[in-house]
């Protein structure tokens, strides 16, 4: 049984893909427990299965076998609508390529999760402003993504991930498309938010120095298997 402080519990999780006759096991029997308020870095080289594991924990995909329990609910067994609600209410996501919708302004992008969650309009405005202020993009709210720098776009994506006040923030290579200065700024922001809001952050990266600098726990994956799992000093 998971302890009271454990938020996410992966139990022998596997994810296989079939390409013709070939079966590719992207995640292979990984067991992992993430506690409330942790900043966990999933570290590994390209193709190690870290992004696949993140997708499984974020409810974007379902494991082929095993279980992922979040607050004691097994994501693998949730109905599609319940899984969508989990992504909408419990999870915030930041991607390597920002994934802001280019046709919308920054504030419209940030408002999108609130629309999906059917939050009332008057409440939306204040929450969008609060999220944008938190990432320092208040003055840029009317700009479209193409009018923002890479760092600003990622901060905008972070504001969008935070606007629903999620319990868990998943970040998939958030610095992958940024230079080192902007990358560090984003991670500083992540840690600041973690400290301020007590949020659990699970970040995928292949940059060990950054992981060691900002995460308080590093799980190393290789060929879909969990190789090591250690708390940072």
């Amino acid at each position: 049984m998971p302890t009271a402080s454990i938020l996410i519990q992966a139990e022998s999780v596997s994810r296989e893909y079939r390409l013709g006759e070939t079966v590719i096991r992207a995640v292979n029997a990984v067991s992992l427990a993430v506690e409330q308020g942790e900043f966990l870095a999933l570290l590994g080289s390209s193709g190690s299965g870290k992004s696949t594991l993140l997708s499984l924990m974020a409810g974007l995909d379902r494991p082929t076998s095993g279980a992922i329990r979040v607050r004691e609910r097994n994501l693998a067994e949730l109905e599609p609508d319940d899984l969508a609600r989990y992504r909408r209410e419990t999870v915030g996501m930041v991607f390597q390529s920002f994934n802001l919708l280019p046709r919308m302004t920054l504030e419209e992008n940030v408002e999108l999760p609130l629309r999906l969650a059917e939050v009332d309009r008057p409440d939306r405005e204040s929450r969008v402003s609060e999220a944008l202020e938190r990432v320092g993009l208040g003055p840029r709210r009317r700009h479209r993504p193409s009018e923002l720098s890479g760092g600003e776009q990622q901060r905008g994506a972070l504001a969008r991930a935070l606007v629903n006040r999620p319990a868990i923030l998943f970040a998939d290579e958030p610095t992958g498309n940024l230079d080192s200065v902007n990358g560090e700024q984003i991670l500083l922001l992540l840690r600041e938010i973690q400290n301020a809001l007590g949020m659990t952050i699970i970040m995928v990266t292949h940059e060990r120095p950054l992981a060691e600098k900002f995460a308080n726990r590093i799980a190393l994956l290789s060929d879909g298997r969990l190789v090591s799992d250690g708390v940072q000093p």
Partner: protein
Amino acid sequence: MKTRDLSELAARNLREAVLRNSLTTLGVAVGVASLVAMLSLGVGLQTLASQRLTRSGLFDAVFVTSQRNFRGPRRPPPPDSAPKQDSRPLDEDTRQQLAKLSNVTEVYPQIRFVTDVRYASKTETTSVLGLPDSSRLSGAFDGMTGAYFSSPTANEAILQIEFAKVLSDQPPSLVGKDLTLRYAERAALSKDAESDDSLLDSVMGSGAPGGISIVPREKSLRIVGVIESDPSAGIGGFGGARVYLPLITAEQLHVAQPDDVQTFLSGNSAKPSYMALTVRVHSPKDVPQVEAAIKQLGFATFSLLDATKSLRLVFTVFDLFLGLFGSLALTVASLGIINTLVMAILERRREIGILKALGATDRDVRSLFFAEAGAMGFFGGFFGVALGWLIGQALTWGTTIYLHKQNLPGVKISYVPWWLALGAIGFAIIVSLVAGLYPAARAARLNPVEALRYE
């Protein structure tokens, strides 16, 4: 997602690919326009035919004759028939009685006779018919040369074109000229005028009237119009006439009728009787009820109601075929919607992935695509109805020009009733939604991880 948010997102998506979506919407509009134009043509022609027939009086009239008139002159009465106490004459009392029946608008006699007409030096024998004032609205006199009678009691005549040609090489020149009717007037004789009362009493009984006299008369009438069509068939007669008079004028002539002798012998010669009465009702649907009521009063009746049922059947089949041809264009347009939305899925695959990652349900994504398809259907339907109406107007315009060149009055051959406009828009939306079923389902099924990986 709330409906308002869904609508806003759908509107935004439609605006972003404005050219492609406009072309798709135009495709729907053209499809709907062809459907509306075809059906409006069918409805217009049906309305035109119905109006003409209704105005002609064929279908909202019951023709009444005395029971005895329906037996041949040499045909004996049926062996089981009782003495004909129900063979009532069609006199003024009957006319008033029929006029009081519910849903009856007008009762008028058929005053028709064959007589000599003199114009200039020519004398021709022809048939004359009295027209009720309501025939002014029958449509038969639209476009005639000259004008309709100035009043219901005017001493005026309208000539049928063939007869006018007999009188003059230039029929229109007859308007404003006078002609003379030579006819036989029927007058009742009082008993006092008889020379041998006892002889008459021995034949007719002591209560019988004195008798009738037939006196030759002449009447001068002003020709006010020349008509090309034959209005009499629709106004209560069963055959054409060549000269038309106002009904009251014709009645006042007291022209001897073929059944005057029989009326005299039946002892009713004091009151003039009519060969037939035409009973007009509010609408064709009142005909059966009025017809039954008249039969109960002991008269023979005839109506053309069954013909309207056949007419409706013909037009329903006609509309069906027009609708099928119109629908073909809409079917092609729906393929355009499917194509546009499938292309949109490919283009917006990543966007769908982002929406799903942010918590959109399959239903949200499906609804979004449905809303876009529905909006294209609505606007396509709306503009299609407008375009279809314009095509109909153009057809009416072209037809009117052609008819005017043929010296015929213009007609409205296309008509878009409100039910056709709303139905076409609704149909366009339904077709668009059906066309959006597959793309929407495909978009909803997208795996968010795969969609996010798509560049």
